[in-house]
């Protein structure tokens, strides 16, 4: 019996053959996530309990086989891409909301619960408390809470509420030695170091999360959704800085540039001004007088920065339409070119105009097209380079432009990723931000959790191997 066959036999024995897939057609589907990266695996497991996850991890340990945990596979940085024949552990069947404490605003859930399903569950079961899970990646209809924990995911409404780490109170985790541990939890000051904080955003490299205690957020009693349009994208960006400098942190502060506005308008018909250079979508939430006060001040600031028109959503339907335009922007771009390469960097807000200008120049110099739709409030850029991979030599130009965009962002005082993570995509860019000693400290943190190095190896921290390829845009692709 080969080594692999022995591993598969053990997995089938320990968690049941119906939860172990080895058919090439099926396993190929798990060779990549939503990123352009691709790997390979010959075994995919679908555990349904912590005990079954533990059994898979122990089998991998005993066979010295790495494993990769996977939620819905919506990651955009290759974090769930299996390398070197790693066993894929899909937690998609661990999808129960285990308990909700609506009074103290928290819930225990399994990692395969979909992000939006959690908010829907809470809204249905505990309607009178008016709660939701705040992190709202644009993929929230299909991404999992476990994936959000792995990537420390963000979303448009994380400007005021914070990203996933601010909404995770505790975790149950299976470590690579098979121990099942709880870090953080339902109390505010647990004994010891903040291991919970280390695990959130660790991209599956510290163990397998099997339960998550999330913080739930009160729904705001009042909401104003505003759309401003500008001739010049720099005026929109300057408005963002001025709003923050005036002491206001709106719930969301999103920007789209000209090409993106046109693509979105053709796609969702939200009444966006197609002659504008940029639009800002701003949501102000909170108590009645605070919302009214901030809304008026924000409109004044926008007008002082040459905003042409102010549109206030007059109904829930109009608000939903404006957000549909924002959240489906990446489905809309499929009408321009069939392929894309998406980046995710953060720059200081005040450097947005200059970095956007640099991005336009880089892309023009590489004879490509770029759309920008991004979380302007926290300086989180999402340059989306669109192209047709059938054009000879285009991938080289796309990758070269992408690298220059990342370098320009870091040179402007920014960082490599705001919400997609490092995964495989940006692993080899890490030295742009960190020197050897810094990276060794991060490696030491990983060794403390996973001395065997079996959990999703070769991600996040640089190593010699490289990768990168183009992906096709599907309807409703997200960022």
């Amino acid at each position: 019996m080969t080594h692999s066959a022995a591993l598969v036999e053990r997995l089938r024995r320990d968690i049941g053959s119906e939860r172990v897939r080895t058919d090439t057609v099926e396993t190929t589907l798990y060779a990549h996530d939503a990123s352009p990266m691709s790997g390979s695996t010959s075994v995919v497991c679908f555990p349904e309990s912590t005990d079954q996850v533990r059994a898979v991890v122990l089998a991998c340990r005993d066979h010295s086989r790495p494993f990769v945990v996977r939620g819905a596979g919506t990651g955009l940085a290759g974090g769930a891409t299996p390398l070197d024949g790693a066993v894929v552990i899909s937690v998609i069947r661990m999808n129960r909301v285990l308990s909700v404490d609506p009074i103290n605003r928290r819930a225990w859930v399994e990692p395969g619960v979909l992000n939006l399903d959690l908010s829907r569950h809470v809204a249905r079961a505990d309607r009178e408390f008016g709660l939701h899970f705040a992190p709202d990646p644009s993929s929230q209809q299909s991404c999992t809470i476990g994936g959000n924990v792995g990537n420390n995911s963000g979303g448009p409404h994380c400007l005021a509420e914070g990203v996933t780490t601010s909404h995770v109170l505790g975790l149950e985790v299976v470590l690579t030695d098979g121990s099942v541990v709880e870090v953080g939890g339902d109390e505010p000051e647990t004994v010891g170091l903040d291991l919970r904080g280390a695990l959130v955003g660790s991209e599956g490299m510290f163990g397998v999360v099997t339960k998550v205690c999330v913080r739930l957020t009160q729904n705001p009693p009042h909401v104003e959704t505003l759309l401003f349009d500008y001739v010049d994208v720099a005026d929109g960006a300057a408005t963002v800085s001025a709003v923050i400098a005036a002491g206001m942190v709106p719930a969301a502060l999103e920007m789209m540039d000209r090409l993106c506005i046109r693509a979105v308008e053709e796609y969702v018909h939200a009444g966006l001004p197609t002659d504008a250079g940029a639009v800002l979508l701003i949501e102000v939430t909170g108590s009645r007088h605070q919302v009214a006060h901030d809304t008026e001040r924000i409109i004044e600031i926008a007008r002082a920065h040459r905003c042409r028109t102010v549109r206030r959503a007059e109904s829930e339907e109009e608000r939903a339409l404006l957000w549909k335009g924002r959240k489906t922007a990446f489905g809309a771009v499929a009408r321009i070119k069939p392929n894309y390469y998406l980046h995710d960097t953060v720059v200081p807000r005040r450097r947005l105009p200059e970095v956007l200008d640099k991005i336009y120049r880089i892309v023009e110099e590489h004879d490509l097209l770029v759309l920008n739709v991004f979380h302007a409030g926290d300086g989180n850029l999402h340059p989306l380079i669109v192209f047709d991979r059938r054009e000879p030599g285009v991938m080289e130009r796309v990758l070269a432009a992408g690298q220059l965009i990342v370098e320009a962002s870091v040179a402007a005082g920014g960082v490599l990723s705001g919400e997609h993570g490092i995964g495989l995509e940006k692993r080899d860019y890490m030295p742009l931000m960190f020197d050897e000693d810094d990276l060794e400290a991060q490696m030491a943190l990983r060794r403390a959790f996973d001395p065997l190095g079996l959990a999703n190896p070769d991600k996040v921290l640089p190593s010699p191997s490289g990768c990168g390829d183009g992906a096709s845009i599907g309807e409703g692709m997200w960022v």
Partner: protein
Amino acid sequence: MAAVPTHLRDLVDEVHDAVSCGESVAINGRSTRTILDHEHSGRVADRVVSAPSGVFEFQPDEMTVRCGAGTTLGELDAVLAAHSQYVNLPGTGTVGGALARGWTSVDRLGRGPVRDVPLESLLVDHRGRLIRLGGPTVKNVTGFDLLRVTVGALGTLGFFGELTLRTRPRAIDSRWFTLDDVDVRRLTEIHTGLYRPSSVLWDGRRVWIHLEGHPADIDDTVARLGLDTTDEPSTPPHRWSMSPAAALQFELSPGDMVEVGVGLVHRREPAPPRPTPVLDVHRRLDEEFDPDRRLNPQIRRFGDGA
């Protein structure tokens, strides 16, 4: 190691010199933070160092401030107040002390925990090297979040030298209120009926509520609940951590105060020591980040257990 900024040179050199000589070294701020009895190791450091102070860069439109870990919270607050901003760090000592201790103020319910405050740190490690953790922007998921692990580590993983912190806008209005004769049922009604109060404290009979925001919104809430204006209450010094549901069932002694919705009970008596969970990981962290226990040797390591 990255180039050492001038203002960190003394700290880096001193730690490097100490550990090169086989000495242990402690860092001291203003000595305002509580170290619990069971957190003492009984050892004494060969040397004592301090972190630099001073606000190096404040960007109101970024809502970030970069300062030395030895900067006092009063000094920092004076700079931020000019632009109606603040950092969510409690107490009167230094920035580094607040983060090393990691305890949050009674406003955690509305303002969040201290661990969410730092964005980037230059940390002096056990070999006297400068390590960069995190990044300077308000949003960042680049690499593992080692910075968060150092918050509350009492300097056992390294010494904070310089920090970039997230600032917040000050509310237009901020007032404390109180209400008497509040039982658990009424307390739950109040807690679930308030929109994002900064704090709700309860001693088993009386409730104290901290409201921040627009004055007219605060006035609306006061009228609806019939609240009386009061001063911020003082809380007993010791912190008993439990689930917020358990805190409401906890047998309170006179003077005890519950942080409602959070799960802390402030008491006069210290909480009994509890065993460190996930001991293996804590031990490995001790080994990785300070194998010879040269940093803050007066502090008992979490990996040593209870």
